[in-house]
């Protein structure tokens, strides 16, 4: 009976499945080159780490997060953070490095789990506002462009962190002076093809893949004509390890302990960078599509996934607003879209591994440059410059990424978030019209000095004051004590908290009530008088 019901539902399911298949294919095509680039160019890990994040990371987050459009997977910032944190610890792509990377991701996942278990801690993430997130994202976008300069020109990656701007300038000069010209040509062809393809609406979602294909085709042409031994172009190569799953274990042993302790601040950074992005992306998506999914669900999905992924040779995962928006704008309405994209990706990797293996590294560096440039979006930044407070917060957040390391930037971002929200709360809008002192905002211990200063000015000028706190959001105990003390001074009256219409209605009713009462009283008096006579 039930199987018959299933068969009856098939005609309705099939078109939806076909739609999801198409969107899943597009998502897989968008994610694949990014995933490989993230692991090889940014995180310093073999390509299968990015691919598994695009398969298992996407699948886990799709299953764990109830949002219809949530899409996790490998992330630029988190991958870059892994590269930056681990570069001083061990040589990239080596066995030790991979072990430390898995340990780092696991610790980050466990830290994220704390944000699920300790509810107020998770709630703190809501303090991270858009100027801070956008400042961090723009700074990291700029960093990604600088970071990929050496890979773009086929130069060795220097073994210390390429963070300060001055070193980025040195890398740029190195590209011009000693870069491998073949590598630069491949990178430029990838960049130009992707950028041109993006201008054509029909190709927009496939732009990066088209760029990588063009770069790879040119690289193969060079190999055929000049020879790999002369071009010296590094390729992704060796995807033999990529199968359905590749188990791995994080590195935890006595010898590694001092290094593991040294990467703990990095693990906090990694955890927070993931959570910041997930919460911000979910909030932004909720607003865009007019629905609501609690961002704690996203935190939970990230935390559980990141605790599991290190055992599956995968990069960490967090939400990507761009991918979520892509899914939504293509009409993806269920979590199946992400799950299908993961499965398509797995099939692509299993069957197209020989093609992926010949992708040249300069093409991957060009992909990272494009993604870095995409992160600096003027339309997202512009609104912050309309408000002085937001401008300061945005710039401070942006500059902290450019001039400090990632950990410093996250610390500055968190302090700014709390500082900004407290500053806003502590500065209510106070206006004085005639003797009416109107307070819009909070009356609490931090805002009282601001309010009191205005209140005393008003008392000196007007002699008496009417305090209108009809637009107060919150009054704490100290605020109540101050209001009581002010009222006791005989020079203060409080305006009614209700709106004027309500107040007029209330006054009309009170007058009618008064009239009725006085009428009743008059009647009683008449009766009393009559009885006396």
């Amino acid at each position: 009976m039930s199987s018959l019901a299933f068969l009856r539902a098939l005609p309705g399911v099939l078109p939806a499945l076909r739609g999801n298949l198409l969107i899943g294919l597009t998502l897989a095509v968008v994610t694949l080159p990014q995933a490989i680039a993230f692991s090889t160019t940014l995180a310093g890990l073999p390509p299968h780490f990015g691919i598994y994040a695009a398969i298992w990371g996407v699948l886990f987050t799709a299953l764990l997060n109830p949002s219809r459009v949530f899409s996790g997977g490998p992330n630029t910032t988190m991958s870059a953070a892994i590269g930056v944190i681990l570069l001083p610890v061990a040589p990239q792509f080596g066995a030790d490095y991979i072990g430390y990377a898995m340990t780092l991701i696991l610790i980050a996942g466990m830290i994220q789990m704390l944000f699920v278990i300790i509810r107020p801690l998770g709630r703190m993430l809501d303090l991270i506002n858009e100027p801070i997130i956008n400042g961090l994202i723009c700074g990291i976008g700029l960093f990604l462009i600088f970071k990929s300069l050496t890979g773009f020109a086929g130069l060795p990656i220097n073994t210390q962190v390429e963070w300060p701007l001055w070193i980025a300038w040195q890398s740029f000069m190195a590209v011009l002076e000693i870069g491998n010209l073949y590598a630069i040509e491949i990178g430029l062809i990838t960049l130009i093809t992707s950028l041109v393809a993006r201008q054509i609406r029909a190709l927009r979602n496939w732009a990066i893949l088209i760029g990588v294909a063009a770069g790879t085709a040119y690289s193969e042409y060079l190999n055929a004509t000049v020879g790999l031994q002369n071009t010296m172009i590094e390729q992704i190569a060796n995807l033999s390890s990529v199968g359905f799953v590749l188990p791995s274990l994080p590195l935890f042993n006595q010898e590694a302990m001092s290094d593991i302790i040294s990467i703990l601040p990095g693990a906090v950074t990694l955890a927070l960078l993931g959570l910041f992005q997930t919460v911000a992306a979910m909030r932004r998506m909720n607003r865009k599509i007019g629905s609501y999914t609690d961002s704690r669900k996203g935190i939970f999905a990230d935390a559980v996934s990141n605790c599991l992924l290190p055992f599956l040779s995968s990069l960490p995962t967090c939400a990507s607003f761009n991918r979520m928006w892509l899914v939504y704008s293509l009409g993806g309405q269920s979590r199946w879209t992400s799950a299908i994209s993961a499965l398509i990706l797995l099939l692509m990797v299993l069957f197209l591994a020989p093609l992926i293996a010949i992708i040249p590294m300069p093409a991957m560096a060009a992909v990272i440059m494009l993604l870095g440039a995409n992160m600096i979006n003027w339309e997202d930044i512009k609104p912050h410059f309309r408000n002085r407070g937001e401008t300061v917060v945005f710039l401070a957040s942006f500059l902290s990424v450019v001039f400090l390391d990632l950990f410093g930037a996250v610390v500055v971002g968190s302090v700014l978030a709390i500082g900004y929200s407290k500053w806003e709360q502590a500065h209510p809008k106070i206006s004085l019209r005639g003797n009416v002192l109107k307070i819009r905002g909070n009356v609490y211990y931090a805002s009282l000095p601001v309010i009191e200063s205005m209140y005393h000015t008003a008392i000196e000028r007007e002699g008496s004051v009417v305090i209108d706190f009809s637009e107060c959001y919150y009054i704490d105990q100290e605020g109540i004590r101050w209001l009581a003390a002010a009222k006791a001074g005989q020079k203060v009256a409080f305006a009614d908290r209700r709106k004027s219409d309500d107040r007029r209605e209330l006054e009309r009713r009170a007058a009618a009530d008064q009239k009725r009462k006085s009428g009743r009283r008059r009647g009683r008096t008449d009766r009393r008088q009559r009885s006396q006579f």
Partner: protein
Amino acid sequence: MEAKSVSAVPAKLMKIALIVGALCGLYLMALSSHAERDQLRKASVDLTPNCKAKLEGYGLVAAEHYRSPYVQAVNGVDSTVRGYSEQDVRSIQRGCNIVDDLQGQLAKRGARERWNADRFVRGTYTTCIHCHQSGGDKHDTAGKPVSGSNNLGASWVMADMYDRFSGLIMSHELRQMQCYINASNGFKPNSADDLIRDVTAYSRFLSAALDQKMGQRYAEQGLDEIPFSATRRRGDDYVRGAHVYREKCANCHGPQALGMVVQGKVLYPALAGPQSFTMDSRMYFGTLNSLMPGFICRNMPLGAEGSLDNQDCRDIAYYLGTLPRPAGDRQGPLVAAWQQVMMGVMPPLTRYAESLGRNHTEHPGD
């Protein structure tokens, strides 16, 4: 709507043209820079006087085989190794020039002939020979390499070996990068840069000229550490150090260790003050310091090397470590700010204190 889409097409084309134009412009810049480098690589090299003497002495010429006159003279045997091409010889010559005159003060085309090495170091007087004396190949009066003299050939034969100070297996390129970062508070060149490659070629040639074998540890490699156990065990004392410094070192390096510069040429390097970028290379009293005493004992004073005893060297190194100089990358902003203040305050204070001391000496009865 249609008019809007029609007007959007030229704008889009313009955008594409701009992007392509900018990227092609960068490519043309790269082509031009590469052509300039190629030209420099092919150009004949004007050797500095020291390099001319050294390389001629070692018989460097382009040939199929290389026979070191030094090995022949010292060991009395004829050691023949594979020779050098014209290109190799130019690379070795440039490498020697870089070590001898990093900032190109003796070059016709200045820093360009030294692959713009001045970009990667701080200050205008920083150069390799302050630590790698005699072009990284210092010999004693008997013609033997000086023990603990930072010999570059001996360093090359230990390439890809465990580095006991950083705890890493380091290639010769990485070892050079450490010099830029630690000994000059500078920035590291890319390991594929000609700057690194030429010095590597020169170091490799030195090892052939001195018959140093790969993987062997030679006494002239690096510095000899002087641990506390090798002293008179009186403890390091910067007051004693200041006294010995004034006696043995101040003549060349100046009373406040600010160095000696004559007509823009550094005769003796600054050991403290604004031109001494050595805080990250153990010139800081907060760092456990057994290396700097080793350098002093084996290489100083010039012409009278080995005349100081171990305790004197430890005291001098401790004294020098207390003098102000620009902070390195490891010390952080607070130390950097403090050092900047001290560099302004200490010289006049020291001069004043010394003048008091002089008056006191001149008029003991006062």
